[in-house]
């Protein structure tokens, strides 16, 4: 009995995927072949000479930037009120050295983060790897 109770106390009743300081924090890494989506504001969309558009690297700068896991969402749910929705494979930031970590939140179970501060060149690389999931809509 004593042995069973000592084992049971190591099984978490609940766990956290958002708070790294939580003793029951569990980090779930997004696999490379998963598609990630990021909303792009109209002001961060660059018009190319050939008449098409691409997201600026400015949309992928920051620390622990947010993305949606495509398999856990729909384009219409992810885009919200933004101009466009850009998609890229998790493989892109992972190959650059970042972890992509599931980070569900109450209002968005598909939420994930690209962990760390995105370097300027890497932001550019991620932006170039994007394809439009929802083409930009301009006001």
């Amino acid at each position, binding site marked *: 009995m004593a042995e069973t109770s000592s084992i049971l106390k190591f099984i978490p009743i609940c766990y956290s995927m958002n708070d790294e300081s939580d003793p029951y924090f569990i980090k779930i890494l997004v696999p490379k072949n998963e598609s990630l989506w990021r*909303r792009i*504001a109209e*002001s*961060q969309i*660059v018009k190319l000479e050939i008449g098409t558009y691409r997201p*600026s*690297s*400015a*949309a*992928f*700068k*920051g*620390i622990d*930037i*947010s993305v949606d896991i495509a398999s856990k969402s729909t384009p219409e749910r992810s885009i*919200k*009120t*933004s101009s466009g929705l850009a998609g890229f494979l998790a493989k892109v930031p992972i190959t650059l050295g970042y972890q992509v970590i599931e980070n569900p939140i109450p209002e968005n179970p598909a939420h994930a983060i690209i962990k760390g501060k995105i*370097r*300027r*060149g890497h932001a*550019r*690389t991620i932006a*170039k790897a994007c394809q439009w999931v929802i083409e930009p809509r301009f006001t």
Partner: protein
Amino acid sequence: MYEGNTLISGQNEVEPIAATGILQSDAFLSNPLSETKPRYKTPCVVKTTISGDEIAIAPPADPDETTAPWLIKTTGDLDQLTNLPDNWDSYNSPSISSRLLMNAKNFLSSLEFENISPPRVVPVSGGGIQFEWQYGNRELEVEFVEERFVGYLKIVNDQPTGEGQFSISDYDSGRLLIKWLRPRQF
């Protein structure tokens, strides 16, 4: 001594007697002390000295006529960014701080006499500003995210080739970046 339209020092300090007028230099010269007010062709400030002489002071030149067109456009694009509210990118990015805007404008002013086209002006997620230039196979991104530094990224044939940062007061580094971007004109 005048500074623009304002008499700031000197022996003939008086209050202006008229706000605007049209300068017609020959009429003024032929009747400098005429009781009738001279007509002036161009808008000016008319002031009277202690001795009773009228002096027509041309207003400062229109700054838009002397500032490089690319700088005028880019400054206008920058001013548009002041309208961005908090959470403008739906990822809780704050509105652009006035300090960063000032840094960006000062950087542009240091390049006023460079022969370049206006850059794309893009807000950066997290609250910042980015200028993007492209000439041929070379691209340059200059970012204002931290208040004390300017960040940059060089791109050649679509591939990042170098990045770094320098102090916001180091205008020479900014001009060197432009020289790298357009090497043939130097």
